[in-house]
Every structure is written in structure tokens, then in C-alpha cells.
């Protein structure tokens, strides 16, 4: 933002988050614009549409207080960038990378375009290092691997923050003792949420390893569009230039998408579903795909976006399009939450797609893929039988169905349920799974091989 550009006095039109300028010259698409409000404050924006005569600018820092006559605009000639440097680790910054912790500016000349560039699919390394989160419902059935993008689909009031914080505290690789460097981006959440994470990281002593990009509920909504990009740009720097393993937590993606919708509406763009723009998928992908590993480089980016599903509806565009991009999802279940099950990880809709290559022989244990598959199959039977029992009464169930009901209760109470500070090893998680399966007769366990049954069941 140090380039010198022409300064234009007066704006043609201000409309929601957008500013229109006329008669501008030599302005590039995507350039950053600095608008000085009548009160002297400096606002940042970005060029969305540029012709020879007119520029449409989206203001990250809001348009409140801007006037058409008394505002000035300067085009910087560069796209949105942030400073990056190792010194930033441990700092609290705002959505565009300026200090928010009262400490001085970060001293570095390294600047990176927040939009990044696409990783060449040819250069990627397939992620397959098992991360032990210490949470059975994840490690055993929805395994996280290093370099994966695995979101938490939650709903209002559910403990997604606790789960994310627990994962951030406990996550480790079996073989190495490498700590994750954590990059935390908050979009439109309340200060309490940020505070909760800060406290949690302080308690675990990880706080010096955490970099925060905060754009809170009372910050201008459009800043949320740049916040995750700043965070991911910094994460890419740490991972692929400094060789670190980075865990990025993005919360709350629903707020991010709402900001995107706001801009689209202001531009009169044709909406697709629920007023969200048709490019929501591509836009989200430009964030989520910034996870992974690169062949020949030591670092990695593991992403854990958090989103709250409006009305707990998983088919809402935000969770739906997220699910279409990420490599699985951890879905929280309202009913389990109401039954005081922590963590209320829904048994069936949760999925980790990279699990298959991260587990099993030589990684966790040989029987892991099969026991996970068997637990899913059995638990889905439980769901069917519970529905049946609700109609015909549980006394009418067959003896086998009754065993399934018993299995379901045990599974929820002992396999899924665990403490917020309980850190289970993968062996403990596998043992808990087998313990639950022993409730069922051997003949039901067709997804396990005879040898596995001999070794762990009999």
C-alpha cells in the first residue's frame, strides 16, 4: 500500500458496502483503494468492476460516515496484501493484518497478496498422516489427517468452540512430537468467542503459538471477506515458506457468507439459492482449497472451518456448499446435545474422506477401517430400529433389535461421550469401539474379518 497513486476527490455514489467512482484512470481490477472519510479515517476497499470511466469498489471497512462530496479515494495500484513474518506468531491482528493488541506494527517488508494463487494439483502431496485428536468420535470414526480441510457443522448454542479448542489443544501425530502453529480467524463472532479461544490457548500454554485475525461482530461486515484470506495467506507463509505445520481455525463461515451475500445484493447480482450469489461455491473453494500439503515441502495446512447451520438445516447453502468442497464434515447433533452428550458428534452424517489413507495397517491399527465401517453400519441400524420402536413400542421389538437398542445407548454413552479435557489414545478409542460391538452377536459383524473377530471379539 506504499505505492503512490492519484487521489480522487468525491465519490459518485455510495450504496451499502459499495462505492462508485467516475472518471478514474489507470486503475486495475482487484486493486486496493484507500478512501478517506470526511472525519479523516482511512478505509480500505477493493475494485470489483472497472471500465474506462467507472470503478465499483467494495469497502472492507464499511461505508458508514462516507459522503459523496467530502470523501477522497486513492488507488494504490496493488491488490490487497498483508505483511508476513515469523514475528507475527503470537500476535492479535485485525482482518487486514493491522495490530489489534496495542503492540506496534509488525516490522517486515515481506508482503503477500491475500488472494494467493492456486496450488498446482500436480504439486500437491496427498495428505495421510494421522492426527490423534484424543476425541474418540473423531479419531475412531472420522479421522483427521494432516493437511485436511475438515469443518465443524454446528448450530446456535452448540459446543463447536469447545470441540475446536479441544482439538487444537490435544492434536498430535503419533510418531513425532510436532506442535501445530495455530492461525485463528474470527469473522463476525462476538468478542466472547475470541476470548474463549484466547483463554483456552493460555491455559494450555499454546498462546505463543497462536496468531489471531479478528474481525468481530461489531466490525464492518465486509472486512469479513478479507479476514480468512489474510489468515490463510499468513498460514501459507508459515507452512510453505517457514516449514511449519499449521492448523487454521475459521469461525464463523456463515457470517462470512452473509457478508458475501450483502455485497452481491448491493451489486444487483442474480441470486441462486436463498439470496446467495451463484459464485458462492467458487468463492468458498478459493478459501478451503488453501489447505493441504505440497510435495517436497515440509509444512502443511490443516483447516478446521466452523459454521453454524441456520435452523440446524444441513441443506442450507452454506453447509451444503462447504460439504461439497471440504474433505468431510463433523456434524453436531441437536438431539445429542440436548441429551447432554459431549461432544455431540452426529454418528451418521459426519464423515472424513481422507480417513481411508490415514488409518489402518502401519498407521493406526489393521482393524481400524473395518471397525469404523462396522460401527457406522450398526449405528445406522440403531437409528432405524429407534424409529420403528417409536411406532410399535420397544416391547414389540425382536430380541436382536433389542440388542441393537442396547448397543446404541452404550455407543453414545461410552464411545462418543467423553470429557472436555479427556485425551484418549487411539488404542483406547479402538478398545471402546470393540467393547460396544461385543453387545451384538458375532453374526451381525459382517464387516469385520474372521481373523479380526477372533482377535478382538472372542
Amino acid at each position, binding site marked *: 500500500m506504499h505505492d503512490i497513486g492519484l487521489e480522487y476527490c468525491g465519490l459518485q455514489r455510495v450504496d451499502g458496502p459499495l462505492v462508485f467512482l467516475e472518471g478514474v484512470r489507470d486503475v486495475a481490477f482487484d*486493486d486496493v483503494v484507500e478512501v478517506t472519510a470526511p472525519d479523516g479515517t482511512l478505509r480500505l476497499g477493493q475494485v470489483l468492476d472497472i471500465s474506462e470511466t467507472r470503478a465499483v469498489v467494495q469497502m472492507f471497512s464499511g461505508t458508514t460516515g462516507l459522503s459523496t462530496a467530502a470523501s477522497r479515494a486513492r488507488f494504490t495500484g496493488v491488490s490487497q496484501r498483508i505483511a508476513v513474518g515469523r514475528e507475527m506468531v503470537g500476535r492479535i491482528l485485525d482482518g487486514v493484518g493491522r495490530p489489534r493488541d496495542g503492540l506496534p506494527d509488525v516490522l517486515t517488508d515481506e508482503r503477500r497478496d491475500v488472494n494467493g494463487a492456486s496450488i498446482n494439483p500436480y504439486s500437491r502431496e496427498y495428505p495421510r498422516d494421522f492426527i490423534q485428536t484424543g476425541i474418540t468420535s473423531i479419531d475412531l470414526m472420522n479421522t483427521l489427517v494432516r493437511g485436511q480441510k475438515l469443518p465443524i457443522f454446528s448450530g446456535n448454542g452448540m459446543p463447536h468452540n469447545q470441540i475446536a479448542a479441544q482439538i487444537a489443544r490435544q492434536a498430535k501425530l503419533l510418531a513425532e512430537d510436532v506442535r501445530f502453529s495455530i492461525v485463528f480467524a474470527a469473522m463476525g463472532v462476538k468478542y466472547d468467542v475470541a476470548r474463549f479461544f484466547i483463554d483456552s490457548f493460555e491455559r494450555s500454554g499454546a498462546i505463543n503459538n497462536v496468531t489471531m485475525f479478528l474481525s468481530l461482530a461489531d466490525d464492518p461486515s465486509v472486512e469479513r471477506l478479507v479476514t480468512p484470506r489474510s489468515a490463510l495467506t499468513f498460514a501459507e507463509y508459515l507452512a510453505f515458506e517457514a516449514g511449519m505445520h499449521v492448523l487454521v481455525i475459521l469461525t464463523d463461515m456463515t457470517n462470512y457468507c452473509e457478508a458475501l451475500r450483502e455485497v452481491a445484493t448491493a451489486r444487483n447480482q442474480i441470486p441462486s439459492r436463498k439470496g446467495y450469489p451463484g459464485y458462492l461455491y467458487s468463492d468458498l473453494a478459493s478459501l478451503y*482449497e488453501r489447505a493441504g500439503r505440497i510435495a517436497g515441502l515440509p509444512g502443511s495446512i490443516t483447516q478446521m472451518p466452523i459454521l453454524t447451520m441456520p435452523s440446524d438445516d444441513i441443506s442450507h447453502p452454506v453447509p451444503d456448499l462447504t460439504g461439497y468442497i471440504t474433505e468431510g464434515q463433523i456434524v453436531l447433533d441437536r438431539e445429542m446435545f440436548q441429551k447432554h452428550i459431549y461432544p455431540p458428534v452426529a454418528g451418521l452424517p459426519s464423515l472424513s474422506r481422507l480417513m481411508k489413507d490415514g488409518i489402518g495397517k502401519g498407521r493406526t491399527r489393521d482393524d481400524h477401517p473395518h471397525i469404523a465401517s462396522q460401527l457406522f453400519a450398526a449405528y*445406522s441400524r440403531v437409528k432405524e430400529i429407534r424409529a420403528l420402536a417409536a411406532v410399535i413400542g420397544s416391547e414389540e421389538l425382536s430380541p436382536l433389535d433389542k440388542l441393537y437398542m442396547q448397543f446404541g445407548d452404550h455407543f453414545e454413552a461410552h464411545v462418543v461421550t467423553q470429557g472436555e479435557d479427556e485425551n484418549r489414545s487411539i488404542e483406547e478409542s479402538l478398545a471402546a469401539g470393540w467393547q460396544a460391538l461385543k453387545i451384538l452377536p458375532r453374526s451381525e459383524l459382517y464387516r469385520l474379518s474372521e481373523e479380526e473377530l477372533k482377535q478382538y471379539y472372542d
Partner: protein
Amino acid sequence: MPPVQLKPQTASSRANPSAEARIVRINGPVVEATGLSRAAMLEVVEVGRERLVGEVIRLTRDVATIQVYEDTGGLRPGAPAYPTGRPLSVLLGPGLLGNIYDGIQRPLRAIAETSGHFIRRGEKPSPLDLERRWRFTPSLQAGAAVAGGAVLGTVQETPSIAMAVMIPPGVEGELAELAPEGDYTVADIIGQVRRADGATTPVRLANYWPVRRPRPSQRRVRMDTPLVTGLRVVDVFFPIATGGTAAIPGGFGTGKTMTQHALAKWSAADIIVYIGCGERGNEMTEVLREFPELQDPRTGRSLMERTVLIANTSNMPVAAREVSIYTGITLAEFYRDMGYNVAVMADSTSRWAEALRELSGRLEEMPADEGFPAYLPTRLAEFYERAGSVETLNGRRGSVSVIGAVSPPGGDFSEPVTQHTSRFIRCFWALDRDLANARHYPAISWLSSYSEYVNDIEPWWRHQGADWQELRITLMRLLQDEVRLQRIARLVGPDALPDDQHLILFVAELIKNGFLQQSSFDPVDMYCGPEKQLQMMRLLVLFDRRARQVLARGGTLAEIREMPCLPTLVRMKSTIPNDRPQDFDALRTRLEQEFDAIERRLA
């Protein structure tokens, strides 16, 4: 139709930066430029100093609207535009197989070498290695009369695939010159055709073809052979014909990509074109990492030798995503024209449709359903129309089968892309959320899927002496009965059902777990050959028949459930490999003996 010849990637004579051609507006991937009154629709125009590749999609007087295949950030009004005088084309020649390209056929491996791990803009390496020499073996003689499609000779492109060097469609005349056997680069002229007007056209190992124009063939032929996929639920219940079209609709995480990977690995095609259209980078990496290690069950060669990848992932430019499926299908037609059976996987056609929608929105076109342009169905139809089994220009038989994934928002099949697609395909493999949640894979619903090829290919199976039709009907009937009985059980309670109906429920479970479910991760079961499919079906049908007999003779279901061979029967898919049919005979004998024993007790 003028032939498209190998031209340097840079601009042609008309392409000197004409002073008037300059950019006037940038709106994301859509750029407007003036001074292009001579530009043609769909002509390639390069924009800006980095010469980003774009294509003219609208002309208004001298303003051309250009969709640009790269990120336009930093581009400014006033920057130059360069018309090239040619339509967007792909280079067809040896070296495609085993390669990975982006949506406009830029080689990603070469780009990784020059620009590093992140794709830099403006990179334009040649799609085919210009240095590499290929051994060309001529099969014609100078003096022969030739027309488009005529085979001049061959190049062994990979150990399993011989590439026919063909006269480009549209060229006709006398073969004036033909190079002798020897090693040539793709740019070397290996033949000259003297046309009727006396002018000559050079022929090279590689030639361009415009992606949006289907390559011609002589005629379509009937599709009567199944494309054996090795997936039981497909081959048995919802088969696709060689040259056919299929759609796999399903919500996120229901198994579209896994199914397409499985088909790309095991289906009986000669060539696979895999198009990752707006999907994940890691899924392409997975193919790149896995395929070279896997063996084609038919040729014993590495699967990568028959595969081309088009990777325009979700974070890559959206306009290039729109082209990627045309790029892919053009490559497929090229191999079809040599007489190969090609299968195209497009994952996901919904992302392609969304790219269309996004571009249409930027053009401020009038939207139809859910913001999609009104021409969506036309475009879909044109794409699927390029599939088929044909007699090629050179009289061979080749085919392109197309399998497209569809990603309906919210998993709701009533949305426009699923609806329109289902009008143009003949095989519908509907993925079911409940099956996927229960980890019953492939989650292809046996109730809502269909195939219109069953009757066309039934003679093929009969010809092999197989009772395929009878077996599949028996199994399907059991599955349908199960649904009916489950409904009754929910009303009256399962206890009210008599034993013979319980038996149906039991056998249906057996079919689902022991037959339909097929894990792509199981080293034995990931591919199931036709012979093994038949053997498994016969055992299940036998089991059903004998079990009913036991009940008729006064036996109970409890006795049947206790049969010691049952655990082996449910696991036969993963315990008996494709090459051990004798194990099925042994299992059959065991089954019969156990039933005999029960019946003896009853008597």
C-alpha cells in the same frame, strides 16, 4: 471446413497488437475490448501484457466480450488485446496419455517445473513435449488417395496404446509425401497431402482441433456391448453400454468421485479421460499417485498408461472450468477415431453448469431456473451428444462413453442440472444419502436408479451363455419385496410377519451386505469381474430357493440363520478372488450339503 494445423502458440499474422484493440472493462473473468470489429465469435483473444488467454463470447459492433481463462486481477482498461484468428483448440498427438492438463490443455507438470508449486499466470507451455522424438511407423505409401481420418501409420504412445497418425478431418487428396519409419517430434511434418486444387497440406504427428466442434465420424452404430465396470450394482442392475451415457447424481459425500475413480480404474475401456471440473485438488493428486501403481486387469499394464487427466479444480479460474469438459471430450473423440473405446468421467457437471451461470450472470443475461441461463439444457444436450459408438472416418469402430457426476444443491434431485441431465442420459445412478450414511457403498440406490441399456446388452450376456437376465430379475424382485414388507412391518410389527416373509427380509439383507455393498478399499473386492458376478448371483439365488424349500417342508428360519456357511457367504466377495472360480464351486457344494442336512432332519 478448413483443417486446423499446428501453429505456434503465439499470435498469427493478424495478431499484431493492432493499435486499436484495447481493454475497456474488467468484470472478473469477463473482459470487454474495443477495436475488435474483425474478431469472430469464439476466436481466441489474448489480453494484457501477460497475454492471458480468452475467448470471444459476444460481439457488439467493435466491442468484443471475452471470457478469460486466467485470473484477471491487475488487468486495467487501456491494456492491449491480441486477436489470434483461431478458435480455442487442443493439440492432439502422442504424449497426451499419462499427462495432466488444466481446462485449456496447459500441461500442469510443465507448469510446475517453470512456475513452482503455485500456478503463475500467463504460462503457456506447449501441451505436448516439442523435443521428444517418437518412433513413427508408416502404413501407407505415397501416392495413396487419402481423406480425413485415414491412418498414415502408428506411434506406440505407451506400451499399451498405439496411436494412429491420422489425416485431420476435412483434408482430402493424394498423399504426395510420407516420411519413412523414423523418430520425429510432434511438430515435424511427416506427410503432405495434395488437394484437388493442387495446394498441399502438411500433416504432423500432432494437429489442432477446436474443442467446441465435435470431431466427425461416418455414422453411429448400435450400442449392444456392456461397458463392464467391475462394480456389481452397475453391471448387474444398471448397466451402461459401451458408448453410452450415465449420470451419477448425489449430495456431498455420497460417493460420486469414488464411483468415478472406481470406473476409471476398472472399467473395460481402452482409454480413460478423467475431468476434474471444479472439484478438489487432492482428488487429482490421488489419481496421479495411485494410478501408476495399479494394474489394468486386462492388459496387466499400469493404469496411468491409458489415462489422461484434466484438472481444473474448484479454486482454478472459473472460465477455464467451463471449457474443461470440451477439452476432455475432444481428447476422447481423438482416441475414438483410432478405434478405441474411451470412457470420459466428468466430475462434476454441476460445477461446469455453475461456471456457465457465473459467466452468464456477468453478461447480464436473462436467467431461467435458479439463475442458470436458458441455454443450459442445450449445452448439456450438445455435450452428451458427443458420446456414442461410431464407425470412424477410417472405418473402425470406436466409442466414447460419458459418465457425469451431478452435485445437486441440498441433494435435491428436482433442481435444474439434475433434471435437464436426466433428459439426455440413459443411465441414472442415483446416490442415496441414507445408504451413504450407513456406509453402504457404492450408495447407488437400487430403487431409484435406472438403465435404459438393459435390453440392448442382454443378448451380449446371453451370448456368453449366461443367465444374467434371470438372475438379476430374481435378485431385484427380492429387494423390491423387502421394501414392501418393511412397510408392513412398520405398521403391524415385525412379529406379525410369517416366516417366509421374514426369509425375504433375511435374503435381502444378504444381497445388500454380501453382494451390492462393494468397498473400493478392499483389495480383493474393489474389482469384481463378470464371471465372479455371475457366480455370486447364482449362489444367492440358490440360497433363496433352497431356504424357501426348507420352510415349505416345515423348517424354520432360525435353523437357516444358524447355517455354518453363512459367514462365508456374506464374505465371499472379499475372500474369493476373481481368478479362483473353483472356490465358488466348493462353496456351492458346502451350501447344498448344509441344506441337505437340514432337509434330512426334517424328513
